[in-house]
């Protein structure tokens, strides 16, 4: 098993014919992902790495049975793209696009809930389950099949951590990039809940950062609901208040969202914390 996605997901890519779309359709296909369609209005009939392009999501769904969408369109068109996917009854939407106005994200996150769809992101690197599928822009080479679940609010930092797990021969069940924005469709609690139920996951790694209270909420949830060992790294211990540290969501606002508060909350929930990102692998090796 894996969480949220598996080898059966039939992926359509919105924004398939752009530079990113073309590159990552190729990358996903070589990872083993079933990429069945691309959507770019006005480009129907073209192909990208032998994947047919359609003018609309509805058409792509009708012709190919796509049930998952990867959204790579520019920020100002992202709201339209996600609504289109949800309206075409797509049940898993992964939004990679960064810099989407958060009011737009608020709208489509609520519409996804109404439609009973799983929405990952925005500003997510995607989700990968080694040996099964990869939906997103995560580099394929860092993964190894195994039993550690990873959920993270960042991109490159996660690659670094996953890569260090691989170097210690510790594989992953699913690695989900939740996204660096303040409004995201899937949070730590939802990921933890899925990992707890997943038989193939034996331990969970959380990569958090300053901003919001997602880690504090997760810590409370872990106390009551999670039996598997949880490890974490929190970025931004030295970030000053009021500054947005690269990610739209990484900001200490009105005293809330400090790394200190998150670290304390995790310690209380018996989550083991790493000092340096690459130490996570040592911690997991030691305890699992």
């Amino acid at each position, binding site marked *: 098993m894996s969480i949220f996605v598996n080898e059966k997901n039939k992926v359509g890519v919105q924004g398939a014919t752009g530079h990113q779309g073309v590159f990552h359709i190729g990358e996903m296909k070589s990872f083993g992902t079933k990429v069945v369609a691309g959507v770019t209005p006005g480009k129907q009939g073209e192909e990208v790495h032998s994947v047919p392009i359609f003018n609309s999501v509805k058409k792509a769904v009708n012709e190919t049975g796509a049930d998952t969408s990867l959204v790579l369109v520019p*920020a*100002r068109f992202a709201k339209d793209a996600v609504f289109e996917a949800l309206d075409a009854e797509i049940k898993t939407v992964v939004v990679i696009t960064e*810099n989407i*106005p*958060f*009011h*737009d994200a*608020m*709208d489509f*996150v*609520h*519409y996804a809930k*109404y439609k009973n769809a799983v929405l990952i992101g925005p500003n997510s690197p995607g989700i990968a389950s080694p040996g099964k599928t990869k939906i997103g*822009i995560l*580099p394929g*080479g*860092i993964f190894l099949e195994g039993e550690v679940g990873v959920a*993270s*609010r*960042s*991109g*490159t*930092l*996660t*690659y*670094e951590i996953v*890569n260090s797990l691989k170097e210690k021969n510790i594989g992953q069940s699913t690695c989900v990039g939740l996204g*660096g924005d*303040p*409004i*995201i469709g899937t*949070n730590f609690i939802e990921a933890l809940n899925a990992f707890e139920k997943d038989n193939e996951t034996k331990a969970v790694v959380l*990569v958090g*950062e*300053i*901003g*919001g*209270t*997602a880690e504090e*909420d997760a810590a409370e949830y872990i106390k009551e609901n999670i039996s598997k060992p949880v490890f974490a790294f929190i*970025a*931004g*211990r*030295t*970030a*000053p208040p*009021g*500054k*947005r*540290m*690269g*990610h*739209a969501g*990484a900001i200490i606002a*009105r*005293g809330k969202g400090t790394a200190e508060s998150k670290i304390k909350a995790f310690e209380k929930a018996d989550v083991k914390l790493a*000092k*340096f*990102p*690459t130490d996570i692998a040592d911690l997991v090796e030691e305890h699992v």
Partner: protein
Amino acid sequence: MKLFEYRGKELFQKFDIAVPNGKLVKDENDFSNLNLPFVLKAQVPIGGRGKAGGIKSAENIDDAKTYFSKIMGMDIKGFTVKKVYAEEKVNIKKELYLSITLDRTKRMPLIMISEEGGMDIESVADEKIFKEWINPLIGIQPFNIRNITSKLRLEKDEVKEIATVISKIYKMFRNYDCELVEINPLIISSNGKAIALDSKVIINDDAMFRHNDVIPEHVDLTALEKDAKEKGIAFIQLEGNIGVIANGAGLTMATLDALTYFEGKGGVFLDLGGTDDPEKVKQAFELMKKAKPKVIFLNLFGGITKCDTVAKGVKAVITKEGIDCPVITRIKGMNEDAAKEILKDAGLITATTLQDAAERSSDMAGGV
């Protein structure tokens, strides 16, 4: 993007929210069209200006002149006052607090109202703040407003006044892609009108493309940070003396954090993002040089980004433009060996691990 108080009030007026009569005062003789008494207010993008002496009430023109010259140019928590706003005093019957912000956990707009107006909301007891969440797909409904106004000890006409302001700021929050709209205090005047005496408005940077009528002032950024923003580079100036360049926001933060274990302190956060474009790399180094760090610490993880392409860009800018501080690099991931060779060749120090690089950077920067 934080707006100055007077800019926020300009927006309030667009939404028909009453504010006192006021104007920006250019010099100490510029008090026409204002009735005494009035209040002079420093325009700074930070709270606590009253305590810092940035707000003064003038009963006569002589006072106004004295206060104006005191406030203009004063330093409030690192911000020099360059604009002074003057507005007429109003007679206050009641002071309230009202705001709309984003609840990240519930992923909804959150309205907060309190009768403890005029105070720092963080110091107000939780049971005195009334909250209401709005489903963004449905929008604000009368019941939402009733839920909170019913808890206030107000007269019937006052409730009506406040209810109108609530629906107006919700509209503004949504129409202008706000992160925060705060009125503290929102007052009921002695003649029963709701008036916004202050404004705190933050507009979501990512939505600025659809608000051409809002002037992108970025009042809380340094000159270099503004420059970086125009170039699309995530760049933040901090208190220390080590300039950190990494790819990805999380990794850049983690790199800054790593320095503290060796008594080093970051002076710049620079996130290269997923780019290996030599032009972007060049711009990043140029910005970094202008910030004058004692040491530059370049930390790269190549996932999709190829380390050697970034290294080539770094080498090109360093050989061409020179660099006047040591550069310590730590490279991991795709094509790391080739990248290390290129950087060594450019005369840069290549460290093996993050810890090693952080320790060496900290030592070279001479601690804090």
